[in-house]
């Protein structure tokens, strides 16, 4: 499993010194597939590397630098679009980590701009973004209605000139999910950083990241999410985090994330049987960058839908998507 090689190298960069060419090829392929190549490049900055490796990592650092710059620009444009609405614009995930200069942002891959705004401000936010040049990506009326009725975010929008996506969240998990984190409390406690931009409080940042990784997703990109969590944890006070997680109904998930982060990136932790299954899913990546352990991966895909909605609704949703030609990967 080359994902294991990847996490070993992130945990202990000096161990890369012992890699042969085949090891490097497997490591680089897994890091690219998990979108951790930028993070890896920063971790290996002060290690003696084979000649062929340093330009590859140099490129990865350059790319992550550009992504950070682009993310900050998008955040600035969104702030400009919402100016005058009297809405706190809260950055989530990658853009937030970069904007606040957090360790989790170093070398991080950043895709879309994710923001959180109060639910009752959504219609005004939607209008303001459209006026500033964003437009809908999903043409399909079923998808659009599905998002609006059941999801925790608007259907994704893309900027007509800059070709960059924005995801506007009004809460943390889909409305059909079993846990209902208190988005209002998160918004109330958000921390002002600069230019009308906010990020979540230290503890809420972790809770949010954990919610996405463990209570919602099928664990795609889970190694990167867990790296975020691993980097965010040292900033939090343990008791405050526990209390906050309990309030959001995610105490068990936050504890599990602690164990997994400790076991995979940290000094080690005692894992339950369920933790071990999650770890096996997270490490399902081979030396060519392909997903391995197909059955386990599929099981997690099914589970993610199971968690998101009640069974009958799930059946109807999957049938509709299947009829439209969608197939799980």
């Amino acid at each position, binding site marked *: 499993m080359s994902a294991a090689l990847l996490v070993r190298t992130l945990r202990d960069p000096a161990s890369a010194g012992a890699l042969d*060419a*085949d090891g*490097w*090829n497997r490591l*680089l*392929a897994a890091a*690219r*597939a998990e979108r951790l190549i930028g993070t890896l490049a920063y971790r290996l900055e002060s290690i003696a590397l*084979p000649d*062929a*490796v340093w*330009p*590859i990592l140099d*490129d990865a650092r*350059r*790319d992550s630098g*550009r992504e950070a710059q682009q993310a900050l620009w998008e955040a600035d444009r969104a702030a400009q679009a919402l100016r005058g609405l009297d809405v706190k614009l809260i950055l989530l995930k990658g853009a937030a980590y970069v904007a606040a200069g957090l360790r989790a942002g170093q070398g991080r891959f950043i895709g879309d701009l994710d923001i959180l705004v109060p639910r009752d401000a959504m219609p005004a936010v939607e209008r303001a973004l459209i006026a500033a040049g964003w437009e809908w990506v999903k043409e399909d009326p079923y998808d659009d209605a599905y998002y609006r009725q059941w999801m925790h975010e608007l259907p994704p929008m893309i900027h007509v000139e800059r070709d960059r996506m924005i995801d506007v969240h009004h809460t943390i998990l889909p409305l059909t999910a079993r846990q209902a984190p208190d988005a209002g409390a998160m918004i109330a406690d958000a921390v002002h950083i600069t230019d009308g931009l906010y990020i979540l409080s230290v503890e809420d940042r972790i809770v949010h990241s954990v919610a996405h990784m463990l209570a919602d997703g099928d664990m795609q990109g889970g190694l990167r999410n867990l790296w975020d969590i691993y980097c965010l944890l040292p900033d939090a006070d343990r008791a405050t985090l526990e209390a906050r997680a309990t309030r959001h109904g995610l105490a068990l998930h936050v504890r599990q994330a602690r164990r997994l982060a400790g076991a995979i990136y940290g000094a080690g932790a005692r894992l339950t049987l369920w933790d071990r299954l999650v770890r096996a899913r997270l490490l399902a990546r081979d030396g*060519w*960058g*392909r997903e391995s352990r197909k059955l386990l991966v599929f099981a997690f895909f099914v589970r993610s839908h199971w968690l998101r909605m009640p069974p009958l609704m799930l059946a109807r949703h999957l049938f509709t998507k299947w009829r439209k030609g969608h197939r799980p990967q």
Partner: protein
Amino acid sequence: MRHAITLRIGPATFRIGSAWPQPIADLARLYTAYPDVRGAIADFTVRLQPTSLARRWVRPSIFITGDHGLADAAPMSLAHGLLAAEMGMNLQMALGWRRHLLLHASSVEKDGRVLVMTGESGSGKSTLAALLGERGWRFMGDEFALLDMDSGAILPFPRLVSLKNRAIDVVTQAVGEARMGPLLAATAKGDIRHMVPRTDAVARMGEGGMPALLLFPRFGHDAAVRLVGQGEIFMRLTQASTNYVALGEPAFTALTRFVANVPARAIDFPSGDDAIAMVDQLWEQLA
């Protein structure tokens, strides 16, 4: 992956894996004159994998991907496996290469100075580079010209030349069967056949040269030469580059210098022989 090969083309090393033996066997045969880099650390991984479990055996269908891929890339039949491998390498370069400014262009060199030709697919830039490569020029590449952003030099990327439709016969007559790959009939771009560059082009693939002339060729029209304004050249080159935006300011500076220093013309030509005569004449006048 079960079948694999490592290839170095110009400055880039590719590790190519395939679920089927044939594409790798084709590559091994056609790239035999290239440096032996078995066991090297690769810049990119390319994967030729089945589009689904069943499609490995039943009507085999190749999904081209790797370190960098496009989710909606069209699948290809196993009969076109060699083309899939070539497209896989191009895809990695187009989406992932950051060490030079990539221009979608062919290039040939004479006396240390480089002729760069850019245009849409079907403009004749590949055929022209292949033919010039047999007539006293050194072939440097038919897909990407790599512009060194510090020195302003053009570096070679001489992979197999991909020839389409009518160009196949013209070039086969010029170079002989021994240097030609299998005929890939009825691909999305018509019939395709690959040509192996001359051994001297391969041996000197680490050696760049300063650009001396830029041409915008267009096949299938009456012979004509036109001036092109610098603003238009700049715009066309940014559109011909897949990493111009990703590279940011250094790319802007390098491209500005290229446009300011390299004379350029658009040429229309009805046949390969006409084109070569026009190129020779412009080279005498301008380069």
